Each structure stands twice: as structure tokens, then as C-alpha cells.
């Protein structure tokens, strides 16, 4: 199976000369979910944004389905890639239905098709179209907004989905529901997903593979089960930072 996304020696430097991405090489297989873990400022979002060319690498290249991303028309490229971000991504002046159908609208598809497709998609992400199609973003809860954001990203049937901390702003219970929904959906739709998160649990639950970034460089790249067992210091550190409450409560019980 071919690579859906391939990073070849990607570097990205900001004007001051500081490197945000250091020689990243990574190949994502079609239909898999790769979770990019790392602390804030480690370059996770920057890496994700080179795929749909919101950022152009300073050197190296990004290939999407075998073609160099910067050799593809940027509008076409982006329409073929779903994009979901945390919280604020919905257009506040559009109804839910229009938000979901916006990519199709931009592509000039007829209204009837857009409406039908957005209703299908709303149902797919677990929102009743009759109840939600005409609402606005401010009339939705955080979880509902993320569902709409996901439906919008799927509208043009992209093969690739970029998700930048999609559930970062949600409470743990809603987040768990969203993760279940996404997992079911991905099992059915077989998208290539690049998921940026700082939540280890989310990476373990959704990822087929976990890539750990630190200061712009890949420090670990392994399947979830291996990640938990790894003796590599950076990985151990990251794993140890989670479930601390659990451990301290367990120690108290033993004492």
C-alpha cells in the first residue's frame, strides 16, 4: 500500500532563524491513523500544516499521494484534505448546514446536493439534521461544534484528514464520546488521519502509530503498545506525566 503523506527531510525555520521543524522524515500509509504527540511548541501543529500548505517548509518536501504538495494547485490540494481544529473553527455567520456544505459550495456544487450531503454528514456524526441543520454555532455545545467541524471536514470525501487537537477543549466525558464516534467513523471510512494531540490517552486510543516530537524533531515513532513499554527516556518521561493522580491515589491506598 502506498504512502498517503510523506515528509522528506522537512525543515521549517521562522524569520529569526529558529528551527521549528528539524529534518522530519515520515511516511504515513493509506488508511492509517498517526498520532503526533509532544508538548506545546514542539512543532506538532507546524508539521500538520505543511501538509495542506498553510505553511511551506523551508527545505525538504511534503508529498501527498505521491505528488509534491507544492507542485499541486493549492486550492485543489486543500479541497482534497479535511481539516479539523480545536473549538473556533466554525463560521459564526453560517448555519450548521451551510458550514458543513461550504467546501461543496466553494466547488460550485448545486444547492440541493449540498443540502442533502450536509444532512447525511450530520447524521453520520450523530447529530439529528432536523434539529441542528438550521442552528448557528453559538447555539451548540462544545461537543456538538466539534461534530459539525468533523462533518464539514468530510464533506468533499477527502482521503486525508488533518486534525489539530480536535477535542482539546472538551470535558473528559464529551471527549471520550467524540473519540468513540471518530473511531467508529474511521473504521468505516478508512481515511488517512494525522492527529495532533498532547493527550497520551487519545493517541493510544486512536493511533495506529505514535510519533513523539520534541523541539521540532522526531524522538520516537512506534505503535501504541510499544510506546507504553518503551524505555526510551523521552517516551518514559511523557508516559510518566500522565496518570500521576492514579498512581498517587494507589500509593495512598497501599500506605
Amino acid at each position, binding site marked *: 500500500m502506498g504512502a498517503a503523506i510523506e515528509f522528506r527531510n522537512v525543515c521549517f525555520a521562522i524569520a529569526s532563524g529558529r528551527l521549528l521543524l528539524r529534518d522530519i522524515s515520515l511516511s504515513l500509509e493509506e488508511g492509517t491513523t498517526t498520532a503526533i504527540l509532544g508538548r506545546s511548541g514542539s512543532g506538532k501543529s507546524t508539521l500538520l500544516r505543511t501538509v495542506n500548505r498553510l505553511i511551506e517548509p523551508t527545505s525538504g518536501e511534503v508529498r501527498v499521494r505521491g505528488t509534491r504538495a507544492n507542485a499541486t494547485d493549492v486550492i485543489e490540494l*486543500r*479541497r482534497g484534505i479535511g481539516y479539523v*481544529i480545536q473549538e473556533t*473553527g466554525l463560521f*459564526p455567520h453560517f448555519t450548521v448546514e451551510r458550514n458543513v456544505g461550504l467546501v461543496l459550495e*466553494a466547488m460550485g456544487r448545486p444547492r440541493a446536493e449540498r443540502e442533502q450531503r450536509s444532512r447525511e454528514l450530520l447524521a453520520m456524526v450523530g447529530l439529528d439534521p432536523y434539529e441542528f441543520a438550521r442552528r*448557528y454555532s*453559538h447555539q451548540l455545545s462544545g461537543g456538538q461544534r466539534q461534530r459539525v467541524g468533523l462533518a*464539514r471536514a468530510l464533506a468533499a470525501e477527502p482521503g486525508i484528514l488533518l486534525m489539530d487537537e480536535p477535542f482539546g477543549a472538551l470535558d473528559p466525558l464529551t471527549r471520550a464520546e467524540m473519540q468513540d464516534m471518530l473511531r467508529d467513523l474511521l473504521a468505516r471510512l478508512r481515511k488517512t488521519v494525522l492527529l495532533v494531540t498532547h493527550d497520551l490517552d487519545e493517541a493510544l486510543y486512536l493511533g495506529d502509530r505514535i510519533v513523539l516530537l520534541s523541539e521540532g524533531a522526531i524522538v520516537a515513532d512506534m505503535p501504541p503498545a510499544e510506546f507504553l513499554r518503551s524505555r526510551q527516556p523521552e517516551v518514559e518521561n511523557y508516559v510518566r506525566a500522565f496518570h500521576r493522580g492514579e498512581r498517587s491515589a494507589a500509593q495512598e491506598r497501599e500506605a
Partner: protein
Amino acid sequence: MSAFLGQYGGEIAELTVEHLWLTAAAMLFATLIAVPVGIWLTRSPRWARPVIGIANILETIPSLAMFGFLLPLPWLGERAARIAIVALTAYALLPILRNTFAGIRGIDPAIVEVARALGLTGTQRLFKVELPLAASFILAGLRTATVTCVGIATIAAAVGAGGLGELIFRGVASVDNRLVLAGAVPAALLALAADGLLGLAERWFKVPAQ
């Protein structure tokens, strides 16, 4: 009072219409200039300071002096109404320009980025996302400009452009306060009406926060 209205009513109505026309024409031109320039400045922000600076300077020229400067110019100077419209347009530029620029720049960057990431073209982004989200802001600028210009338009009578200022100047010259009021009261009412109507439009386009 009724005798006064009987004598001047027709003239007041006529001058009000004239006043309205001068202001409306100036607002139209100012919008046609300032909104596109404001949009361009959001694309080339390094020009924002100098361009808004020029609009700022225009705004500080005393209105009587502005009418005076324009008087000797060819073509413009031939008709008083042309002078008035050009001067009023110049005064209206700043608030519209500033609000167009600030309104678009003030949109949540995440929203604009999502519009790019979804594959909207530059034009689609402008018309489907940026302008609708900045509309109430731009209208607020238009509203400030209109209210200012309804006031300044009274001075246009000094160069013979007509409008309600004519009654005011005549009243001042003949020390007749009734004539001054006959010009000033409708002008004030016009300003209030413009303020109210554009305020409604502004609220209509207001986008609720998330």
C-alpha cells in the same frame, strides 16, 4: 410659527432634499473608495499606516478651509455641488477606511485560516467570510461618517452648494434665529435619522459570538 412654515416650508423641504442628496452622493463615493482600499490594506498591511495617515490628515483640515481650497480648481470649481461632494467624500474616507481595515483584521485568525484550509479561493474568502464578518464594523464606520457629513454639509452653503446650511447662513446674516433653526433643526433630525437607520443595519449584520 405656522405663518413662518407657510412662508418657508417649501424651501425647507427643497433644501433638505438637496442636503440629503449631497450627503448621500458623498457617502456613495467614499464607500466605493474606502472599502476597496481598506480591503487592499489588509492584504498589504505595510501600507496601512501611510494610507490611513493621509485619510487622517484630510480629516483635520478645517471644513471651511477645505471648501476654500477646492474652489479655484478647474472643473470642480465650476459647480458648487461638486466641491461639496468632493469635500464631504474626503471627510468620510477615514472612518470607513479605518473600520474596514480594523473589521477584517479583527476577525479571529483561526476562522480565516480554516477558510484557507478548506480550499476557499481568495475571492471566496473575502465575500463569504471576511466581508460578512466585518460588515457590522464597516457599517459602524459608515454611520460615523454619515453623521459627521450631515453636519459638515451645512457649511457647503458657504460656497453656494445649497443644502440646509443656506438657511443657517441667511439667518446668521440677517440675525433671524428662526431661519437659523429652520436650517439647524432639520439637519439635526437628518443626522439622528441616519444614525438610527444605520444603527439598525449595523445590528442586523452583527454576528453573535460563539
